[in-house]
């Protein structure tokens, strides 16, 4: 007798297997066919499973997976690329840190360079933040003599040349 609230049936796996194997209904024994007629769960399964199994067959037929050789090659290449990125990441970090130091140093000595180069930069010093920063930095270097200032200038030029190089090294691998 059919019970609509029944949730499972011990013969459901047997029925599903018969449907998947293509034995349902003609290739099954009479007792299973009779049972499906009497059981709410199996009747529903017998309605749904052939449809979904048919759809599965159609979908598998429709699927056009790429050749396994090409897939393996692509997956392997991707894994190696990612492993290389992981391996070189610490070096990239070091390079990035170096670039940041260079930029910081360059910004630190910039006001001094501007001071040495003359008064044309007065307008810059009158802006809001720079005068305070440069005031501190220039006071540090106030005691420097002419030779030391020349040395500082050479340093600034070197730094200016190194910044693009360091940034290139740090960012090119990314």
């Amino acid at each position, binding site marked *: 007798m059919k019970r609509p609230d029944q*949730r*499972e049936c011990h013969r459901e*796996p047997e029925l*599903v*297997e018969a*449907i*998947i194997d293509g034995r349902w209904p003609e290739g099954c024994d009479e007792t299973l066919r009779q049972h499906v007629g009497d059981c709410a769960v199996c009747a*529903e*399964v017998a*309605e*749904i*499973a052939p*449809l*979904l*199994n*048919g*759809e*599965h067959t*159609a*979908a*598998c037929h*429709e*699927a056009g*997976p*790429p050749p*396994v050789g090409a*897939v*393996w090659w*692509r*997956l*392997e290449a*991707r*894994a*190696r690329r990612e*492993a*290389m990125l992981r*391996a*070189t990441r610490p*070096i990239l970090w*070091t*390079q990035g840190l170096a670039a940041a130091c260079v930029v910081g140093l360059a910004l630190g000595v910039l006001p001094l360079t501007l001071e040495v180069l003359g008064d044309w930069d007065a307008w810059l010093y009158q802006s809001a933040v720079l005068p305070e920063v440069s005031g501190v930095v220039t006071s540090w270097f106030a005691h420097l003599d002419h030779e030391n200032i020349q040395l500082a200038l050479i340093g600034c030029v070197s730094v200016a040349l190194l910044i693009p190089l360091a940034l290139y090294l740090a960012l090119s691998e990314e």
Partner: protein
Amino acid sequence: MRDLTLSEIERLQVDAVAAEQPFVMDEESFRAFYEETARPLWAYLSRVLGDNAMADDLVQEAYYRFLRAAPDCETEAHRRHYLFRVASNLARDHWRRPRPLQIALDEAGEGAVVDGSQDLAADTARRKDLGRAWAHLSRRDRELLWLAYAHGSAHREIAAALGLRTASIKLMLFRARKRLARLLRQAEAEVGQT
């Protein structure tokens, strides 16, 4: 002995990475596994998501994640369940909204009534009903129903593929089956009215 420069160290590291095997599974085993699973995996993703193009993209991603994770599987069945679990996670991440089945009805199916092949025509009509009903099902319902009745997986296998408790599957599958049966009857009734 001279010191190594930074770029030389980098090159040595890169060479070492290039020389090592990226996956635990070797190519031969992968070939056999892929040949067996690629089509069912595509079918699963395509029908759960209702999007063939998305399934094309996700199949390769599923294999990549599977190989990277290097699961310690004792049997082929475990391996297959793990792959479908990866695919289910991908389906969850890429699920946008319920979409109908993209059913490719072949010319024979469409022309069946003209040819007098009533069985084929009825089959085509049933597939169209399924397509309409499927559009109203949630992703979880689709996964459960597909694994249970398209693959014929046992509750324990469904639980492994979906990352759920085996005990929960019984009730969830019962509800999903009820919903699909009701939706199929509705779809049939709608066709009958038109």
